[in-house]
């Protein structure tokens, strides 16, 4: 990499507090030229990009957001190892860019002082300076730089302000050794604390000399917003309202693109049918691959919307408020305050959620969180919920304007959360007994979410969803199709059923296939839940991954369909499905029962794998799968039988 001898490749680390604007600066410096990986052996994300500084390029390493370098947490340990050059394949940084939020100067500078102590040249990138100045504060940047003994550059990622200056400064200070402008005395009676006092003492001094607060009131805007959003009474109501709005939007906004995708896949299937000669290959492609993969891909618009809202809530600072509002509830059941974050990310997917439990120090608290994380309704359940709601509860409203679908959706999420809390309560009082753990969390000021961050997050998630559909779901679809297609009935065209064929669109093929036999075998077990053997097949398949239910149903109703039947949407196929006696297989109650089952059951190979890895124990893993699925069965049984008793269908 040493192209012209005297200008070696640089390694630069970007360090800063969470919410300091580090990600925005990183994106602005590197553009799209970045890659994300993990630090060896841990699940801490490692983000790297190429930063072109004049005529030379540098590797910019984005360290995890941190408050301190004292290695009490995994993130801090990693950051320290990077700075001291102890991480495999990561050269010791030549310069550290310390990102400092001007509106929160003292606490942000704390990390900067720690960075200085490592002897690596540091330059401070001062962000949020526009917000700071809007508050009528004045900062003497030269003075600040002088007292701190390091260069300070004001940057504004949106306006590209300070980018060049930052680059020039980095090049200038390479190889210099910063002088620590204060003394650290580890032998004082305060012990380690004396270091903290020394750093803050120095910072207070520097800030006092360089900043003039013309307006004493700080962060009052956020506090004023919080007067409503974290209000003692309205706060929780607003939280529910926000979630309800999100679900309603997911439903109504996604309808059009979903319909388009659905008819697109339908047309694709018809096209393939006309292009290919009739036969087994066309059957596989249309009934297996297009029905299975397409059936799942149809839900892409909803996945995009879900992550759009999650990113906005996270980026704006509202997530932290939600944690603040719900902490009492969490500590009541004995959960760690930090458990909120993993649980929240489990709404996207339990896997990153479970990995994020590494932030919880106590093993019992951590296991309790892992064991309940999969109860949070992840995005893979969304297709299942939507399919059921779309087929049986679409277009109905409550109070005239709230759609029943959104309420049912909220109810499913609420069911998952409630069961999780009850289970946590029981676990923390029995097998995982421990005192309630601490909770210290910054409530960042409200900010307009950055469009770029939101879209990047959305696209990453969408891509993972598509990738999954193109790999795992594709493979499972082909296998399932084969299980439904073979063995071939001896007389494939003649229906040999005893029942009247007209009321029974299912061919004997499906019934006599491998999958059909399997479905019939488990039918006695699922009959009390109101499920027939076809749902049984889909249910078994969905233990690989939840959204496979949709693919399987899609394949079942395609394979089992009469030759001359029109290609129809999955929703209408489900609505019209008849059992052997000509009765409807699906009723609204069946749909609800299935949704309840999906809220609680542990149906995800990947999650099982991660739980095994994170708990390092098959015992806990099996325990989790068993109790969750048992609970799901009981809850579904209660829903169905109770619903029938109450006269629902």
């Amino acid at each position, binding site marked *: 990499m040493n192209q012209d001898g005297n200008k070696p490749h640089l390694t630069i680390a970007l360090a800063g507090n969470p919410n300091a604007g580090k990600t925005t600066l990183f994106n602005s410096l590197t553009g799209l030229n970045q890659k994300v990986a993990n630090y060896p052996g841990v699940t801490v994300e490692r983000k790297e990009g190429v930063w072109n500084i004049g005529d030379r390029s540098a590797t910019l390493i984005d360290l995890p957001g941190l*408050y*301190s370098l*004292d290695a*009490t947490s995994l993130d801090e340990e990693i950051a320290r190892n990077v700075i001291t050059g102890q991480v495999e394949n990561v050269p010791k940084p030549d310069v550290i860019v310390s990102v400092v939020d001007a*509106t*929160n*100067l*003292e*606490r942000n500078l*704390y990390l900067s002082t720690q960075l200085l102590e490592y002897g690596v040249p540091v330059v401070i990138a001062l962000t949020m300076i526009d917000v700071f100045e809007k508050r009528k504060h004045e900062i003497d940047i030269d003075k600040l730089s002088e007292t701190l003994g390091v260069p300070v550059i004001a940057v504004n990622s949106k306006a590209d302000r300070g980018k060049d200056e930052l680059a020039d400064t980095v090049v200038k200070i390479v190889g210099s050794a910063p002088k620590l402008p204060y003394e650290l005395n580890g032998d004082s009676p305060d012990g*380690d*604390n004396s270091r*903290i*006092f020394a750093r*803050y003492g120095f910072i207070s001094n520097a800030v006092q000399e360089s900043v003039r607060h013309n307006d004493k009131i*700080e*962060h009052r805007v*956020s*506090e004023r917003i*919080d007067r409503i959003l*974290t*209000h*003692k*009474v309205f*706060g*929780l109501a607003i939280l529910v309202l926000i979630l309800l709005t999100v679900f309603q939007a997911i439903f109504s906004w996604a309808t059009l693109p979903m319909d388009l995708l659905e008819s697109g896949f339908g047309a694709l299937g018809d096209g393939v049918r006309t292009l290919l000669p009739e036969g087994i290959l066309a059957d596989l492609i249309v009934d297996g691959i297009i029905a299975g993969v397409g059936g799942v891909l149809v839900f892409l618009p909803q996945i995009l919307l879900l992550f759009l809202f999650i990113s906005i809530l996270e980026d704006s600072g509202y997530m*932290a408020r939600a*944690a*603040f*509002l719900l*902490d*009492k*509830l969490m*500590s009541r059941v004995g959960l760690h*305050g930090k458990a909120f974050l993993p649980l929240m990310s489990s709404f996207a997917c339990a896997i990153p959620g479970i990995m994020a439990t590494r932030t919880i*120090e106590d093993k019992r608290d951590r296991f309790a969180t892992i064991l309940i994380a999969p109860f949070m309704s992840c995005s893979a359940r969304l297709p299942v919920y939507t399919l059921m709601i779309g087929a049986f509860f679409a277009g109905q409203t409550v109070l005239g304007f709230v759609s029943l679908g959104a309420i049912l959706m909220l109810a499913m999420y609420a069911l998952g959360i409630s069961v999780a809390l009850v289970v946590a309560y029981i676990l923390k009082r029995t097998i995982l007994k421990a005192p*309630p753990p*601490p*909770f*210290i*969390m*910054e*409530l*960042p*000021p409200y900010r307009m979410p950055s469009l770029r961050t939101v879209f990047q997050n959305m696209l990453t998630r969408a891509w993972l969803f598509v990738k999954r559909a193109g790999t795992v779901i594709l493979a499972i679809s082909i296998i399932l199709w084969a299980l439904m297609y073979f063995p071939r009935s001896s007389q494939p065209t003649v229906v040999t059923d005893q029942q009247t064929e007209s009321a029974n669109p299912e061919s004997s093929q499906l019934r006599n296939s491998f999958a059909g036999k399997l479905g019939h075998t488990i039918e006695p077990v699922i009959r009390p839940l109101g499920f027939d053997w076809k749902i049984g097949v889909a249910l078994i398949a969905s233990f690989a991954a939840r959204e496979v239910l949709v693919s399987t149903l899609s394949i079942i109703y395609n394979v089992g369909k009469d030759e001359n039947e029109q290609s129809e949407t999955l929703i209408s196929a489900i609505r019209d499905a008849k059992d052997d006696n000509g009765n409807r297989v699906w009723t609204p109650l069946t749909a609800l029962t299935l949704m309840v089952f999906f809220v609680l059951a542990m149906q995800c190979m990947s999650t099982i794998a991660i739980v095994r890895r994170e708990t390092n124990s098959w015992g806990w893993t099996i325990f989790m799968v068993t109790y969750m699925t048992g609970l799901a069965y009981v809850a579904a049984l209660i829903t169905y039988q109770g619903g029938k008793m109450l006269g629902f269908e």
Partner: protein
Amino acid sequence: MTLADLEKGETRTVVSVRGQDAVTRRLMEMGVIPGVSIRMVKSAPFGDPVEINVRGYSLALRKSEAESVELARPRDNE
């Protein structure tokens, strides 16, 4: 009195932070050290946790943690 007893809207100076554990340490690293003034912003719906303003930013912590922060009596304040 401790931080847990601070009334909404009141501002006091920290005298000491008790304890030697990681929680105390984290609290101090977040800027809650002797000499700094703290304003109680509000408490969450069920009375816990509380939101304080320290060094110009908002920090949420549980009352059990707030109890380890000893505050000055009013006249000791600057």
